[in-house]
């Protein structure tokens, strides 16, 4: 189906969730969540375990179909549920639909996973190279001609593949895992696997990067380094970042705005300072999180 774009869409908004609801059977995993993420922002999604944060990621990326609501990515509707609550922005009669995940992602989204999902038995280098595919458009027959010489339509493979390999090298160097390029991904130490996953995500040239608990299992120093890294790649690649995180230090330091979820329901939204001083959040989340921090 053709894309639905909004004329009155605010061009400064990268991602908008509009009254998004997801139910599994009778269970409401995400209930009526709305937020807008501005371009260039680092936006954090926090909430206790089971609050529905990863479900929101899966709704944005099209892994799950929306029950209700709408997801708009850079002015294009990428997901539409059955009914729209409080619909005041309907321009056309939009039927519920769901785009294929690869379609959504290739529009300029990339994500990492809470439980790292690499192409396990491939080398670090190939993990990133595989994700670089989008920039090459040579077809099956063009991939059979490997030489530099020949008419332009025939030498596509050579030049495009060269560009892909240069990009892969650049990304691996930025993430500091160039030395490990020939290692099998699953043999990397945990922290480097996280970095590799981010490198793979960046390889698709995203506008919006979704990070699902990137600091999980990292020690404080690694977390600190990761914070710098996230800021650095945001600036370097001109990204918007949506981040799910448990580490409160990381969230409060790195993010521009924070959205708090509790049991699938929105609880608060604001700058780190506002969130830290919000009594509801402190009661529902931060109080519990203090105990949690003790364990971590």
């Amino acid at each position, binding site marked *: 189906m053709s894309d639905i774009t909004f004329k009155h869409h605010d061009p400064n908004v990268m991602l908008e969730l509009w009254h998004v609801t997801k139910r599994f059977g009778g269970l409401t995993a995400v209930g009526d969540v709305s937020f807008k993420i501005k371009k260039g922002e680092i936006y954090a999604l926090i909430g206790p375990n089971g609050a529905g944060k990863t479900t929101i990621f899966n709704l944005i990326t099209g*892994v799950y179909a929306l029950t209700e609501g709408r997801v708009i990515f850079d002015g294009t509707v990428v997901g539409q549920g059955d009914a729209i609550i409080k619909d005041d922005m309907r321009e056309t009669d939009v039927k519920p639909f769901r785009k294929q995940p690869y379609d959504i992602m290739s529009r300029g989204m990339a994500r990492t996973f809470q439980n790292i999902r690499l192409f396990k038995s491939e080398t670090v280098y190939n993990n990133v190279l595989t994700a670089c595919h989008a920039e090459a458009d040579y077809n099956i027959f063009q991939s059979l001609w490997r030489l530099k010489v020949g008419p332009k339509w025939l030498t596509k493979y050579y030049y495009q593949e060269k560009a892909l390999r240069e990009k892969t090298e650049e990304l691996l160097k930025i993430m500091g895992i160039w030395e490990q390029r020939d290692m099998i991904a699953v043999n990397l130490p945990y922290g480097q696997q996280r970095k590799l996953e981010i490198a793979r995500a960046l390889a698709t040239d995203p506008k919006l990067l979704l990070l699902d608990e990137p600091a999980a299992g990292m020690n404080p120093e690694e977390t600190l380094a990761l914070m710098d890294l996230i800021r650095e790649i945001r600036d370097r690649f001109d990204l918007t970042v949506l981040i799910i995180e448990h580490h409160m230090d990381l969230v409060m330091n790195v993010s521009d705005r924070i959205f708090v979820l509790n049991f699938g329901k929105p609880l608060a939204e604001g700058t780190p300072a506002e969130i830290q001083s919000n009594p509801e959040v402190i009661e529902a989340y931060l109080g519990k999180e203090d105990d949690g921090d003790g364990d971590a």
Partner: protein
Amino acid sequence: MGIEYFLQQLVNGICLGGMYALMSVGYSLVYSIMNFSNFAHGGVIMVGAYVGYFALTALNVPFLPAFLLCGVGSGLLAVIIERLVYSPLRKRHAPSLYFIISAMGASIFLENFVIATIDGTPRNYPPIFDNRINIGGISLGVDSLLMIVVSAVALLILMFIIQKTKVGLAIRACSYSEKASTLMGINGDLVIFIIFLMGGVLAGFAGMLYGMRFIVKPTIGQVTNKSFVAAVFGGLGSLPGAIVGSVLLGIMEIFVASFNSNLRDLFVYGLLILVLVIKPSGLMGKVVEDKA
């Protein structure tokens, strides 16, 4: 077509369907929890048929003990296969492709082991119940009726275990999410042991019934292909679906065969393709969403 002939064929169909049900239930149980098609199931059925054959001929035991022996033999075999073949893969969290390939290896092994040690010639069971009875003017073989009763009882017991007992609850929980169930204190290894045991026992019964009705040879395990079709027809991964699908498939197959016996196998695979095109989730299947 006379009404008597029709009813006789119906009984034959239910009889065949019951046998498919015994097979496809074991397959569906494994599929619903371990998420792979256990293609070694056919080998287990075949070994069950041989156990029954030798119990009746070489050991001269009466029907009922022989029947139970089949169940025990096949149940043990299924559990042994799980321990030796699948368990090492499970420990490694191997992809399901590896399980399918190993299952294929196991089925090749079983089939050819029997060919190499016994031989490949088809054998006939000694006649056990070859008398016929008359019900309302319709002459029916005692063996057909017995098969229907036996299949029904075995399946009812299975459904009772799954629906009403603690073990059944654990199995159902694991079929939703094995990982989560394990975290909740359910012994995943034990559940898998039990489903293989139950599936194996039913496979043994099916093997003996098949042998009684048709013949015994090393390749009869391939009849399970039809029970896979039945499982898809009923809804992949759904236990009641597998039973309903099997019985319906059996009945349809018999009627197609009475029309033209050459077409019966073709009909079954044609039906499979039709189901996949029209309604892949089958009669009672559910749509599953991926977990990220």
